[in-house]
């Protein structure tokens, strides 16, 4: 039912704050100025103008109930009852015009391609260590460098098959890469489930909007995994190796297994005989060709890495080395998402591809460089300081929010172990209208797109938009008041 909205009715809305919605202190995704909406958001704005508060409340309630009913939850750690929670979902979608997306997509592919070439170099010819156009020390000292993987051949020379790159937008709305996640990036299940849930709850918002679909992700993932199978003839047997149901992302593991139709396995389901990997089935052993693993390198094989691992498969590395089984992602990709290396990624792009980076980095100071170290120590109160080998925002310092004592403590930590720290200026993250009751307010967001690489590269349109739900909060992760949004790439 097409809706003609008269100019008169456009002025008021049942959603408080929508008519006069405007950017706060940062770049806002929807509003250019108070009450001035960017073109890509006009259609959505019109739908929202007409939203009936009762209908809205019903829709929201049904959204929550459906997440809970479907078990779309994450496991809360350090809780003896193994509590599961839903990841809060904000119904107002984040919109990206196709033109903008096309550029992002190019930038992502470029970045992943360069990172794969880098890994091929590090674990293959090791020219980068001899030519020294970046400090070899950065690589040698990387926590996630796996010397066991040196000389290992991987299909199509691809190491990072599933990549989640975190993007943020600064003051002027320019997209910047915040972090590369080349180990086990998570969150794609929410992209698919958010879309499904929003379509069910508010189908009218999708009318007259050309939203790029996302539900082919399962098929794309399966195709990617098939492309790296070492099997010459016949259908490859592919499995997803999960740490188990107590892992926070277990829902995603089982979700992806269902989407792709591959078997969800735990370490105890697999064993290695000779150089081949088998799974234990009711009809006897069955050979496995590809493992999409969601456990860390350290836990993959107790014979090669951590001896106390109960999650892995003894002898797995031997089978990988013999080329009898492929892992996605490959072993040792963590050296590419090390935060000290991050600073050099634009340089990697130039070196390996002869191109300038399409998506810039956030300016970064390396504590391992004497000049940068001095700057960091003097300006810590203005900076964000991060450990290089952690992800998920653990152990970092936000200068402007820190006490003098915390800053002093971080100074001594950085001094003691400069290799392990980087610092970045504080950037005003973009904001997005977010729903609180019947009120619309701006909240900070970021974006995690997903890139699949096998023989071909496939980018999921959009990605996961995470939002800091608490006012003024900078935290977007699931356990600390973060939520997510559906993300639309719009063919306008």
């Amino acid at each position: 039912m097409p809706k003609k909205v008269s100019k008169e009715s456009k002025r008021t809305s049942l959603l408080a704050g929508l008519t006069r919605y405007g950017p706060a202190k940062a770049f806002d995704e929807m509003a250019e100025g108070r009450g001035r909406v960017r073109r890509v958001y006009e259609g959505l704005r019109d739908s929202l103008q007409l939203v009936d508060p009762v209908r809205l409340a019903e829709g929201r309630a049904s959204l929550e109930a459906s997440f809970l009913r479907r078990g779309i939850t994450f496991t809360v750690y350090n809780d003896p009852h193994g509590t599961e929670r839903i990841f809060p979902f904000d119904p107002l979608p984040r919109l990206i015009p196709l033109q903008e997306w096309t550029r992002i997509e190019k930038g992502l592919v470029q970045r992943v391609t360069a990172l794969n070439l880098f890994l091929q170099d590090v674990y293959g010819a090791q020219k980068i260590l001899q030519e020294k156009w970046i400090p070899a020390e950065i690589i040698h000292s990387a926590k996630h460098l796996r010397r066991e993987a040196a000389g290992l051949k991987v299909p199509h020379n691809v190491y990072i098959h599933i990549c989640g790159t975190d993007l943020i937008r600064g003051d002027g709305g320019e997209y910047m890469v915040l972090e590369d996640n080349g180990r086990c990036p998570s969150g794609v299940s929410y992209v698919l489930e958010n879309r499904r849930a929003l379509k069910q709850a508010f189908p009218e918002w999708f009318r007259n909007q050309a939203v790029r679909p996302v539900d082919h992700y399962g098929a794309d993932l399966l195709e990617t995994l098939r492309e790296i199978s070492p099997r010459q003839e016949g259908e490859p047997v592919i499995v997803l190796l999960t740490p188990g149901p107590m892992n926070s992302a277990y829902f995603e593991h089982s979700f992806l297994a269902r989407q792709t139709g591959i078997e969800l396995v735990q370490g105890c389901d697999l064993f290695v005989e000779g150089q081949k990997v088998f799974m234990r089935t009711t009809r006897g052993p069955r050979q496995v060709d590809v493992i999409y693993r969601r456990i860390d390198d350290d836990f993959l094989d107790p014979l090669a890495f951590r001896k106390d691992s109960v999650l892995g498969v003894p002898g797995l590395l031997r089978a990988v080395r013999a080329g009898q089984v492929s892992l996605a992602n490959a072993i040792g990709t963590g050296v590419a998402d090390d935060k000290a290396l991050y600073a050099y990624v634009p340089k990697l792009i130039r070196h390996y591809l002869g191109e300038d980076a399409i998506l810039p980095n956030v300016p970064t100071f390396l504590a391992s460089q004497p000049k940068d170290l001095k700057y960091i120590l003097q300006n810590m109160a203005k900076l964000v300081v991060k450990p290089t080998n952690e992800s998920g925002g653990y152990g970092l310092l936000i200068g402007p929010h820190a006490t003098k004592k915390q800053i002093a403590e971080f100074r001594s930590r950085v001094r003691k172990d400069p290799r392990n720290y980087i610092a970045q200026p504080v950037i005003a993250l973009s904001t997005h209208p977010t729903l609180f009751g019947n009120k619309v307010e701006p909240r900070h967001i970021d974006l995690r797109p997903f890139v699949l690489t096998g023989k071909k590269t496939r980018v999921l349109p959009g990605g996961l938009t995470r939002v800091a739900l608490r006012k003024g909060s900078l935290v977007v992760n699931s356990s600390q008041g973060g939520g997510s949004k559906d993300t639309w790439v719009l063919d306008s």
Partner: protein
Amino acid sequence: MLSRVADGLFWISRYIERAENLARIADVYLLDDLDRAHGREADWSAILQASGAQDDFARSGLTPSAHAVTDFLTYDEKNPNSITACLDRARENARMIRDQLTTEMWEELNRAWLKLCGSSGKLLRRNGLTGYFREVRRASHLFRGTTASTLSRGDAADFLELGMYLERADATSRILEAQSLRKDQIGEEERWAALLRSCSARETYRTNHQGPLEVGGVLAFLIHDPSFPRSLHYGLVQTGKIATRLAQPHDQVEVEALVLAIRARLTRAPLNEGAGPTLAQFLDSWQKELQSLADWMRERIIGGKLDLPERSAWRSQQEQQQQNFGGPLPWI
């Protein structure tokens, strides 16, 4: 199919069936207790013994009474085999093999769990346990129905049915045991009526047997009836059929022989008090035979070695795995 998945399906089914049967036993006792004249307490030790909870109950330090026992069987945290504990485990198993269930099956089970366990279960029990027990039975039936109408008839469906029939063959024998062990002053007619009711068998029995209820007829029906879905005979025959279907070709003869041997002993079940083994002895050995059949099936049909890691190490390592979900955004 993965052996662990087969095991999971088998146990989801067993736990759901177990929860249902606990609800059946407890409900009948609870209703009987309402009919009783003041001062005449039911024999609660019989139901505890039949449901295998007497030791846990003794350890809990509670005094047997209608409330204490039914609460204990239903949700007490000190009872590892309570209804809620069974539902917890059914769901935990289902979550473990979530990818193998249809969405509808998972949602049905998850909905039952959300409703019957945790704080909403507490709320539901406030209105009386009878209503709660009805919901437990309904949850089980909805899960079976959803399975029948959404899951392909293959190995997965077979493992679920295998668990259900095996558990039921065991549970019906426990219900029989509970009634025959009762030492309270319950009238014979009342006793056998209660027995039939706990098996949803009263109406079916009545269509074929008029006249007063008597022990021989009721026992014969619940033990030997070839078509009643909760009889011992039916449970065993179905278990055997499914197990034969699932077994590797070279094991089929063996499974048939095993089931036939148990069936032969079933024909000698005592239906009246008299010489020879008592009903209680017979039921006890029946339960042991089913257990050894289950062990055989675990070894040969589900697949031998299935060692899940030691729980605390397993949990802490699972929690250590980085899933790179991203963390706080350190920006203003």
